[in-house]
C-alpha cells in the first residue's frame, strides 16, 4: 500500500524538521523528490543522504518570481509534478497589542500567499494529466488559536479554507487537496522551548509526549497515495489527542 513509485513530488521547507521527514518518507515510498527551501546547504545534505531520485531547487516563498521559477524548475527536473507538499512556514510571534505590520504581513505572505502562488503554478500540469495531490501543512493553532500567534494562526486557518476551495475546484480532474495539522512536534522549532513551556504543553496532550516528524510524514504519505483518491478538502489532525475536531 501507499506505493509512490513513478510519482514525483515537490516538498517546500524541506530543510526543516517536518519537511525533511516528509521528503524522506515520500522518497522511501518510491517517489522522485524535489527539495525546496531557503537553506541550500541543508537541502544539499538531505539530497546527499537520500541519493538518487532527488533534486534541489532553493527558493524564497516571499518572492512571486522565485515561486514561479521553483514550479518550472522542479517540473523540468522531474519531467512532471504529481505531488506538492506545501510545508514551508515561518513564525514571528508577538502578542497582538505589540505585533508590527511587518510581522503580520511576513507570516501571511510566506505561509499563505506563497503557498497559494505555488499551488496555482503547478495546477496546470496536474489538470492536464488528470492527477494531482496537494497537501498543505497547517497547524493545530489554525483551528484552536494560540496567544502570541495571531498572524501564524490566521495564515494556517487560511490554508484550510484555501484547500477546501481548491478541493472543490479540482476534484473532477483527479486532483485532491488536503491539509495535515500537526500538534506539538519535536523539531528544532520546539527545541527552543523551556522545560516549563514543554511541561505546560504536555499537560494539554493526552498522549503525554510530543509527536515526531515521522508521524506527520506518515499522514502525508497516506494523503498523496492512490489509495486516498476519494479524500479531498480534509484536514488530518495529528496531535496526540490535544484537540479533537
Amino acid at each position, binding site marked *: 500500500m501507499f506505493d509512490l513509485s513513478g510519482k514525483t513530488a515537490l516538498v517546500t521547507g524541506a530543510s526543516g524538521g517536518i519537511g525533511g521527514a516528509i521528503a524522506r518518507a515520500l522518497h522511501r515510498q518510491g517517489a522522485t523528490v524535489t527539495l525546496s527551501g531557503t537553506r541550500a546547504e541543508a537541502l544539499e545534505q538531505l539530497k546527499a543522504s537520500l541519493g538518487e531520485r532527488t533534486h534541489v531547487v532553493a527558493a524564497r516563498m516571499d518572492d512571486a518570481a522565485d515561486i514561479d521559477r521553483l514550479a518550472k524548475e522542479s517540473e523540468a527536473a522531474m519531467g512532471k509534478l504529481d505531488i506538492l507538499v506545501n510545508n514551508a512556514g515561518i513564525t514571528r510571534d508577538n502578542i497582538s497589542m505589540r505585533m508590527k505590520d511587518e510581522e503580520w504581513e511576513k507570516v501571511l505572505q510566506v505561509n499563505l500567499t506563497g503557498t497559494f502562488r505555488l499551488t496555482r503554478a503547478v495546477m*496546470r500540469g496536474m*489538470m*492536464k494529466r488528470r492527477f494531482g495531490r496537494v497537501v498543505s501543512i497547517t497547524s493545530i493553532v489554525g483551528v484552536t488559536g494560540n496567544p502570541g500567534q495571531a498572524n501564524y494562526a490566521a495564515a494556517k486557518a487560511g490554508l484550510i479554507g484555501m484547500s477546501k476551495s481548491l478541493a472543490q*475546484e*479540482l476534484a*473532477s*480532474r483527479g486532483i485532491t487537496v488536503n491539509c495535515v495539522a500537526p500538534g506539538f512536534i519535536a523539531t528544532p522549532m520546539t527545541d527552543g522551548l523551556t522545560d516549563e513551556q514543554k511541561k505546560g504543553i504536555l499537560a494539554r496532550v493526552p498522549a503525554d509526549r510530543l509527536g515526531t516528524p515521522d508521524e506527520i510524514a506518515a499522514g502525508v504519505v497516506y494523503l498523496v497515495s492512490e489509495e486516498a483518491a476519494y479524500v479531498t478538502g480534509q484536514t488530518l489532525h495529528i496531535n496526540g489527542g490535544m484537540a479533537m475536531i
Partner: protein
Amino acid sequence: MSDIAERVKKIVVEHLGVEAAQVKEDAKFIDDLGADSLDTVELVMAFEEEFAIEIPDDAAEKIQTVGDAIGFIKSNAKS
C-alpha cells in the same frame, strides 16, 4: 485558414463531448455547450498546445464563443 476553424471545432468536440453540429461559431462554451469554468481553462490550454501559441489571461477571458477562439487564433497563430 479554414483549417484553423476545423481544428478548433475538433478540440471542442473532443473536450466537451458535444456533437459537431452543435459547435457553431456563435455557440457559447458555457451557455450553449455546457462547459464549466474549468472546462474553459482547459480549452484554452488545449488551444495553446495545438497552435503553439500563448493566450494571456485577459485575452482568454474574452474568448466566450467558438468564433472568438477561432478569431483569436487566426490573428495570433504562426502555423
